[in-house]
């Protein structure tokens, strides 16, 4: 790695390291931003290839509840519990995904199936209230500061853990982006039958990316639960949070590496900003603006904030093309 490369990495590294030096409140925001960035990035692994899931709350919920239940009931450390949860999330995704992909359930229908799945997980959590506390929620058994139990009241330490997870997510994104799967998945997203015709194993590629996406989402859910030290089905699963994931990813831009992270910064920042502005005076005002902005985003900036920047940058750098036809109409 030469000197130039090193210098290029300094500013981003500095930004990532900054929260270590900030007061508690900002660290709190940073942890949330990083965890949700992981979740949004993992959703976007599917979303960017036209596999729009409206039920990622299911995997978030599994990731949140499984390690906690294992810890509370059987003293299983989250270091084991989290991988177990990720495996369970992937299994769930495969159980539903395999028949869906095999039977070519796509588009609207796929989105609705994922919606149903998200609801099912939420309902199961609520129904098993004896174990999970139902709608009232539950907390992991508190043991104070413990790496074994992954309970880190010191926000700096938790930020480090969350940051590591986020970096893993970004690394996986890079791997997918640069790998051969990307072309295959884009072809599948474009025209599944044509892709199959040229020899792409549609089923396998879809299952692979789904597995990656759901595993990382579960990781995010687990970390979030460990951080908040409180779980509740509405925060951790269900339609509400599933939609939140979709919107933030779209707002940031689900086609680029840092798009979902930008989405997290934007939505969390906006939420906090509005909360500070309106306080408790107008409950719902913040979210109302948030909702309206999201509509505006979809209509005017479908590639998200990052997409907008990319468009501006290319417009500045290259003059518009002249003469050459972009689309040939059939004559």
């Amino acid at each position: 790695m030469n000197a130039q490369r090193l210098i290029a990495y300094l500013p981003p590294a500095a930004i990532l390291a900054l929260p270590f030096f900030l007061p508690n409140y900002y660290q709190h925001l940073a942890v949330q931003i990083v965890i949700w960035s992981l979740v949004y990035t993992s959703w976007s692994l599917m979303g960017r290839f036209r596999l729009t899931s409206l039920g990622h709350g299911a995997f978030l919920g599994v990731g949140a509840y499984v390690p906690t239940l294992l810890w509370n009931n059987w003293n299983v450390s989250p270091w084991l519990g989290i991988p177990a949860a990720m495996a369970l999330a992937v299994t769930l995704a495969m159980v539903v995904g395999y028949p869906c992909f095999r039977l070519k359930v796509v588009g609207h229908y796929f989105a609705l199936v994922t919606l149903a799945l998200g609801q099912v997980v939420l309902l199961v959590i609520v129904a098993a209230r004896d174990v999970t506390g139902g709608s009232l929620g539950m907390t992991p058994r508190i043991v104070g500061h413990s790496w074994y139990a992954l309970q880190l009241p010191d926000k700096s330490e938790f930020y480090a853990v969350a940051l590591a997870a986020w970096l893993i997510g970004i690394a996986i994104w890079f791997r997918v982006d640069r790998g051969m799967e990307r072309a295959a998945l884009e072809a599948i997203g474009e025209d599944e039958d044509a892709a199959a015709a040229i020899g792409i194993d549609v089923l396998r590629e879809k299952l692979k990316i789904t597995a990656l996406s759901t595993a990382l989402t579960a990781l995010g859910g687990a970390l979030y639960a460990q951080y908040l030290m409180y779980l509740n089905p509405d925060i951790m699963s269900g339609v509400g949070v599933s939609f939140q994931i979709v919107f933030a990813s779209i707002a940031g831009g689900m086609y680029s590496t840092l798009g979902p992270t930008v989405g997290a910064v934007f939505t969390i920042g906006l939420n906090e900003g509005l909360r500070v502005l309106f306080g408790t005076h107008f409950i719902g005002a913040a979210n109302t603006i948030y909702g309206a902005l999201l509509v505006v985003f979809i209509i005017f900036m479908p590639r998200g904030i990052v997409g907008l920047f990319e468009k501006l940058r290319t417009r500045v750098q290259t003059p518009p093309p002249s003469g050459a036809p972009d689309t040939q109409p059939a004559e």
Partner: protein
Amino acid sequence: MSALLTLDGVSAGYGSFAALFEVSLKVEAGEAVGVVGPNGAGKTTLMRVISGLLRLSAGSFALEGRRLEQLPAYRIVEAGIAHVPENRRLFGRLTVEENLRMGAFLAAARRHFSERIQWVYELFPRLKERSGQLAGTLSGGEQQMCAIGRALMSEPKLLLMDEPSAGLAPLVVEQVFELVKRIRQEGFTVLIVEQNVGQVLEVVDRAYLLEAGRIKLAGPAAELKHNDFIRSSYLGL
């Protein structure tokens, strides 16, 4: 005598791609006029401009002296132009009769729906047989008949036909051109766009040759049939 349809210096395109360059032509009432040319010449673009599916970028056109280029498609239909689109474009999940009904959507056409549909069924007995069948399940030739019938339901002053022979078996193509003759006999004015130069010159009075968006030749069909350029480039003679 002013013509039924006049195009004056019409230019049009798609985004940065220009397809038509200052095209002027006219169609007299009662005539059948053909526009022939190779693939990509701009024939379909021309149809779409006239029927209002595509906005022109320069020039104008008028029906019976009334300028139409600013109007949306549904108003142009009201004015009396019906377009049988390339590739038929039937409503596949509606029945034959429902497709014909859609052709008679205009208030004026609705009033005469029952007579109109009887007449169309007379013209196309096969459609009557299949009136309750979903249009998407018809054969290529039947679909073409349905598409033409649908356009005729509004009793248009001018019928535009975009490549009616496209994608059809030779025997069916013959039937289609027989139909065009029949429609002419009923008194309709037809502007027909075709790649199949030989066949179309048999059924029209006059024709224009469109190449790369410009009118290269024009004249009575009889003359064009004997034109050397046409004969060598398009009739393979």
